[in-house]
């Protein structure tokens, strides 16, 4: 049955190919339906594959499907091979499931766009590459998917390329992730040099034998790729700008799937990280610092999509933090749950934007929308509470496990920091919710709930966000952790700290504190938050501009880079390169001009020439003898 595995990515690829080649012929919504159907079929196949996997005993839950040998050079061999194991199946299900819903939503959302069919072609292409990434059986194929999703991200962020901001954002995303991608590639080369192969089964089981330093370098190179792709500090700057793309794109790529590729990579390669003493700690620290940084920045955002973008960065930080603590199942669990509730939030934001005039994204110009858009509000609330970590929604179980992992590993300092991060999450998310859906209406126009298709998508995702918690009710014995055990090992037992129950209560308490604070400021009416904004304007601006990291890059890196590029283009290229070439041309023609003067056309000068030669030869003969 597992020969079905290659078809999971193949169907969306076919969809993309059809839509790319025959795009203009499709009537608007038909293209969208086709694309959604492709992803839905892929989801169905993924479920079937999952079913066969589950029907086997735990020790046999791994199969390879090799299509053909791609590279065979000497002893180095890379196949186009897919891997069916618990981790890849979970990822595939998440990608196709959430992806199908988002495609469905986009059928109506993108209606009327002149390049409708192409949009769906790109979306399908993206799903294809993402599936290649998660189903690959070797690092090189994973890298193919990695690059492919980067390409599709570029295409989709810049989908409305007529807008300069969108085109710039797409470029920025590509260039920034490129830094990570290059590191990843170097890491792969390094891996090949150590292992002679890039297959998971030839690398990972032997990773523990690596020397400490080697493992650290390799792990850090891989992690650098993850930092770029998953928008962690310091390569996070592209994600807020990526919100220029259509909202379904933001939901699919920049919330639910592509950005999670980094987490997947780290979890998949965990043996390498474990072989090094410090790699996991670095991952955890980077994740945590990013989570807090992004959380703070999210509080200062007025643009609803940018807030969600920083929120994604923050949640990804939590995932990395969990992985760094060794709680791989928890990280994946958070990944899955996050896919649902972040998608819900993004699609809800999309509905709000669609409903208000001029695609309004500024939350200060929204308010009280729960009355005008009840369904959207309900699904949003589900997403909000899930993210904040309120039981019994999925976010509670997922985030709680991640945070608890710190305490259980005995790292109390990190645990406090993680709790602070959770507080911030609740805070900014609640702020967003209250500003948008509650309070007095500050908006213009007459908003209403989106059409039925979009509503269906929203509801399905909200249900998922709510119920996904069932996958991991317990960190040690939950469905997901047990399912992932063959790949990531058993969940570590608590080494220290309070029991699971106590930790959960603390998590919820922290979340409630966050919600309460936000309610106090924004909804209770006791504090004039608008005046507060004005008074603390510069502080707010700092938060809003992500603590000026982006501006720092602009000045310190981009500016000089542009200067260098201008220098090379105008000085080196024009003067040196072109000058050399034209110079050579001029040299040739001037020397030809000089040589021309030998062609006098006069017989007598030619006679002189002949005689000169003859005399010289004669002289040589005389002298020689």
């Amino acid at each position, binding site marked *: 049955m597992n020969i079905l595995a290659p078809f999971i990515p193949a169907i969306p690829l076919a969809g993309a190919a059809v839509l790319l080649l025959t795009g203009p012929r499709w009537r608007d919504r038909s293209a969208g339906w086709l694309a959604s159907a492709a992803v839905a079929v892929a989801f169905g196949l993924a479920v079937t594959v999952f079913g066969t996997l589950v029907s086997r005993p735990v020790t046999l839950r791994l199969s390879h499907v090799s299509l053909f040998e791609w590279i065979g050079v000497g002893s180095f061999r890379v196949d186009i091979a897919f891997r069916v194991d618990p981790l890849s199946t979970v990822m595939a299900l998440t990608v196709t499931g959430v992806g199908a819903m988002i495609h469905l939503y986009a059928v109506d959302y993108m209606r009327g766009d002149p390049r409708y069919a192409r949009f769906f072609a790109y979306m399908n292409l993206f799903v294809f590459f993402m599936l290649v990434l998660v189903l690959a059986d070797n690092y090189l194929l994973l890298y193919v998917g990695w690059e492919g999703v980067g390409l599709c991200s570029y295409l989709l962020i810049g989908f409305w390329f007529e807008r300069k901001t969108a085109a710039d954002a797409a470029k920025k995303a590509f260039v920034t992730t490129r830094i990570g991608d290059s590191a990843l590639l170097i890491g792969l080369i390094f891996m090949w040099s150590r292992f002679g192969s890039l297959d998971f089964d030839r690398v990972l089981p032997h990773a523990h034998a690596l020397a400490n330093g080697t493992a650290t370098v390799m792990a850090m190179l891989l992690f650098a790729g993850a930092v770029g792709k998953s928008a962690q500090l310091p390569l996070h700057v592209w994600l807020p700008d990526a919100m220029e793309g259509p909202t379904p794109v933001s939901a699919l790529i920049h919330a639910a799937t592509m950005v999670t590729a980094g987490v997947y990579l780290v979890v998949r390669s965990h043996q390498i990280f474990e072989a090094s003493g410090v790699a996991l700690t670095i991952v955890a620290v980077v994740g945590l610092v990013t989570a807090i940084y992004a959380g703070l920045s999210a509080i200062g955002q007025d643009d609803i999509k940018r807030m969600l973008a920083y929120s994604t960065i923050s949640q990804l930080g939590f995932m990395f933090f969990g992985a760094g603590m060794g709680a791989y199942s928890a990280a994946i669990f958070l990944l899955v749950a996050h896919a649902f509730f972040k998608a819900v939030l993004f699609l809800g934001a999309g509905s709000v934007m669609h409903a208000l005039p001029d695609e309004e994204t500024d939350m200060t110009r929204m308010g009280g929308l729960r009355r005008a858009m009840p369904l959207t509000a309900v699904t949003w609330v589900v997403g909000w509470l899930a993210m904040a970590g309120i039981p019994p929604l999925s976010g509670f179980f997922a985030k709680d496990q991640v945070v608890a992992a710190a305490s259980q590993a005995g790292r109390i300092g990190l645990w406090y920091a993680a709790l602070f991060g959770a507080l911030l999450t609740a805070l900014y998310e609640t702020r967003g919710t209250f500003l948008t859906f509650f309070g007095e209406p500050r908006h213009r126009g007459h908003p209403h709930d989106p059409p039925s298709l979009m509503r269906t998508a929203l509801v399905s995702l909200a249900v998922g966000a709510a119920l996904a918690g069932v996958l991991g009710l317990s960190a040690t014995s939950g469905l997901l952790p047990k399912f992932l055990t063959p790949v990531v090992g058993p969940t570590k037992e608590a080494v220290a700290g309070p029991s699971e129950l106590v930790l959960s209560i603390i998590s919820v308490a922290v979340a409630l504190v966050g919600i309460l604070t936000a309610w106090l400021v924004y909804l209770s009416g006791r504090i004039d938050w608008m005046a507060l904004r004005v008074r603390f304007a510069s502080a707010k601006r700092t938060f809003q501009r992500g603590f000026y990291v982006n501006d720092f890059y602009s000045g310190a890196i981009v500016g000089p880079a542009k200067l260098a590029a201008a220098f090379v283009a105008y000085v080196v290229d024009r003067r040196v390169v072109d000058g050399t070439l034209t110079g050579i041309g001029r040299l040739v023609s001037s020397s030809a001009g000089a040589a021309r003067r030998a062609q*006098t*056309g*006069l017989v*007598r*000068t030619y006679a*002189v020439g002949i*005689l*000169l030669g003859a*005399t010289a030869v*004669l*002289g040589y*003969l*005389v002298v020689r*003898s």
Partner: protein
Amino acid sequence: MADWIVFWIIAPISVVAAGAMILARNAVHAALLLIVNFFTLAVFFLILGSPFLFVVQIIVYAGAIMVLFLFVIMLLGVDQPVPLTEHIKGQRWLAALLGASLVVEVALAVRLGIGYSHGRLPDFTAVNRGGNVQALAKVLFNSYFFPFEVTSILLTVAAIGAMLHGRRNIAEEETVDTAVGETAT
């Protein structure tokens, strides 16, 4: 002894005639001086033991070729004195230099005895046994038969070529003459 005297009389005449020829301003004078030179050369041939060539030189060169030259000179009417100014820079210097170096080189070659022996000249009478003509004929029609035939063809071809070249066509007359001194575009 006789050849010594003859040589020292004829050689200066030869060289002087040649020199005067190239400096002559009148083409007819030049032609006549060349004829004198040819005569001296004929005498040289005689001294060197080739009476056949002595006669042939006079008949062919002085008698036919130079007559042709004179015909053409008369035809073209170039018996007017020509200016001896030189337009090409450095031509005269170069000519003098090259000429001098040529002489020097050959003199050196001769002095150093390159390519020939200093020994006593062999007895030439044996070679000319039966007369120079017969001896020449023996060599010519045996060893050099093929070049002989080829040169006869050459002569025929040359005659035909010259005939074709000298034809006056009506079309040729109407061809536009390129102006004298005009350079190619």
